[in-house]
């Protein structure tokens, strides 16, 4: 005699079965979202029609007709289209982010190491730096640098001058512009060749170290090759780079490279603000390496710099890099605050000026968001790749 075992499903009513409930609940949730989307879209089209706003992306081909204070690609007030404005904005966002990421990394690294210093003053000053700038809103810092510090700089005629070639005034920071002459391509070629050469040299050095244990001073040699090769070619090719020095003509400077005050203020504020977070990440990373690691390396008789490079850093970097990359992403997103001081990046140019002129809010704001989403996706892919690469193997 065998009774079939009582399966729970047979005794549970349809609505109490967790599987059915999950399906019903999801259908309801999806239905709600679809209904909401339908309701919004419906109203949106009705409103757009009532207000006579155009739809679609055809506005991108229209001539923009406004001036932009800083353009990295050719841009003309009279003939460039809105799609060119978009490109200019994206490039300016990338420019300020790149500059700020460079400086914030250096500053954050110094402050983070400084917080762990044996030197009482250095440690305390680093702490004061972090606690001060982290607790002040970034927008306030941007406005402060722009409206107070940079606005207090002298006019072009009374510029602060450095070495007679660099000038700082309330119109920005001016520096000599390199002029590439005929043979200057060789210098670039030399630089690229040197980089490739050093790459293979490094591979060889690692392999030899694995095989024989002999060290090769790859950093010194590699650095020297990368630096010296272009310099050598520069002289061999007959010094094909000259510089155009900014000159005071009338009330303003002519020539040279101008870094506009908006860029200065933004890069400055972003670097200083983000550096506090990077410093904390660096400190946490170094503190995460157990003390025993250093003591063990010491007892093996390794030198101080070898311990740092081969024992402490590889373990600390695993903890440091992910939060630092997240901070880079935050920095890129914070660069959108440039719109408060009018630095011509994507939000200022597109969600600001272009939106005011065209009025197609939905398309324009979605395009702006898409730019940042793209940055986010690229950076998180990068992060996943790094995490996979740095995963502790063999565990």
């Amino acid at each position: 005699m065998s009774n079939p075992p009582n399966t729970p499903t047979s005794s549970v009513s349809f609505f109490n079965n967790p599987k059915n409930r999950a399906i019903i609940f999801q259908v309801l949730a999806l239905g709600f979202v679809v209904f909401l989307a339908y309701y919004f879209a419906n109203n949106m089209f009705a409103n757009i029609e009532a207000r006579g706003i155009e739809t679609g992306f055809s506005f991108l081909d229209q001539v923009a007709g406004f001036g932009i204070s800083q353009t990295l690609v050719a841009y003309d007030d009279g003939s460039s289209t809105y799609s060119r404005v978009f490109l200019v904005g994206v490039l300016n966002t990338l420019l300020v982010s790149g500059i700020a990421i460079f400086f914030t990394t250096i500053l954050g690294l110094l402050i983070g190491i400084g917080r762990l210093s044996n030197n009482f003053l250095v440690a305390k000053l680093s702490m004061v730096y972090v606690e001060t700038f982290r607790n002040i809103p970034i927008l306030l810092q941007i406005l402060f640098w722009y409206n107070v510090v940079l606005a207090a700089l002298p006019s072009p005629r009374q510029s602060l001058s450095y070495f007679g070639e660099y000038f700082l005034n309330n119109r920005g920071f001016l520096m000599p512009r390199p002029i590439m002459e005929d043979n200057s391509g060789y210098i670039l070629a030399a630089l690229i060749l040197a980089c490739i050469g050093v790459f293979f040299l490094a591979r060889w050095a690692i392999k030899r170290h694995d095989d024989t244990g002999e060290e090769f001073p790859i950093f010194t040699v590699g650095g020297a090759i990368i630096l010296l090769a272009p310099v050598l070619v520069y002289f061999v090719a007959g010094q094909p780079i000259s510089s155009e020095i900014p000159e005071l003509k009338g009330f303003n400077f002519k020539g040279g490279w101008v870094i506009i005050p908006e860029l200065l203020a933004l890069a400055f504020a972003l670097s200083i603000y983000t550096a506090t977070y990077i410093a904390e990440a660096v400190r946490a990373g170094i503190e995460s390496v157990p003390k025993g690691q250093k003591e063990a390396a010491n007892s093996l008789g390794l030198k101080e710099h070898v311990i740092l490079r081969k024992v402490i850093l590889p373990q600390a970097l695993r903890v440091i890099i992910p939060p630092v990359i997240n901070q880079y992403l935050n920095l890129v997103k914070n660069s959108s605050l440039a719109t408060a001081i009018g630095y011509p990046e994507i939000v200022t140019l597109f969600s600001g000026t272009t939106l005011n002129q065209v009025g197609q809010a939905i398309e324009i704001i979605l395009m702006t968001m898409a730019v940042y989403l793209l940055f986010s996706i690229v950076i998180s892919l990068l992060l996943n790749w790094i995490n996979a690469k740095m995963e502790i193997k063999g565990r």
Partner: protein
Amino acid sequence: MAIYDIKEAKPAPINNRGLVFWLRKNLFSDIKNSLLSLFCIYFLFITVPPALDWLIFSATWSGSQEDIVKDGARWIFIIEKFDQFIYGFYPENLHWRPLFVAALTVAFVASVKLLNNIKLKIVIILLYPFVSIVFIHGGLFGLETVETNKWGGLMLTVIVAAVGIIASFPIGILLALGRQSNMPIVKTLCVGFIEFVRGVPLITILFMASVVLPLFFHDGIDFDKLLRALIGITLFQAAYIAEVVRGGLQAIPKGQYEASESLGLSYWQGMILIILPQALKISIPNLVGSFISLFKDTTLVLIIGLFDILAMVTLTNSDSNWLGYEVEGYVFVTFIYWIFCFSMSQYSKSVERRFNTELK
């Protein structure tokens, strides 16, 4: 049997204690350290005395503009415009109402902390936002209505931050639960929302809320500017809260989930009674961290035309009698933000420390 007196411990050797030893150990242990210390001392010497002089000793603290003789900070500007920095354009005879709400908030926090009766607590928690809105906005019970375009200053900053925190909290928890759930559609929707919002800057969401949101509703439904900003900030903050809460949920051992199920608790019972209390408790430091970011982010509302305390700096300086006081304004606002954020971060650190000892 000899009896020995206990002798006093000898002091440490002279070269191991005292100021000189401390200096030598912490500042001048070797040449590199000495140079660094000298550099720091020089840096402090050139920055701190002038800053203190400007901020305090040479500052003008009282009187009128004619009394300004020294070249330090002119704090009389802040004193003159103090009401505007705090209340914006809120009518002067009604300033007692925001003040009353501030006092109410203190009483609210105290009662939630001290009361043991859970039902009374829930009533208070539900009543508090309603009473606060009635008092600040007016329009009910014979209170004069104050339109939101008159709200401003620190009051507006705190309102935006408080509404953002309170309203985003339940949404954030739901999103976190959705992201952790086994239901693929719900999970996809939640992940999509969270990652989208976290991938774009707040300012684009504020633009979206202020320009696009009105298009989503019938013409009759009119949002005022503040409400639009609040909706944008709440949705933004909810995504971040969701990620913090998810961290807490993931830290709860699986046994807790299984135990709650084996007791026969339903999903919601298990979550509300067993999982969430633990998950939220361990996320408190991170939650406070995300509140600090929100508080700093409230400054962005000035870009869409609301007058928070930061916008007041420019606004008060457009008074033709008081031109050119930006520096004092910025320093004052910096000070206010710093106090708020620093005390919150100290609080979160103290909570973290308390948890650390509990776990050990």
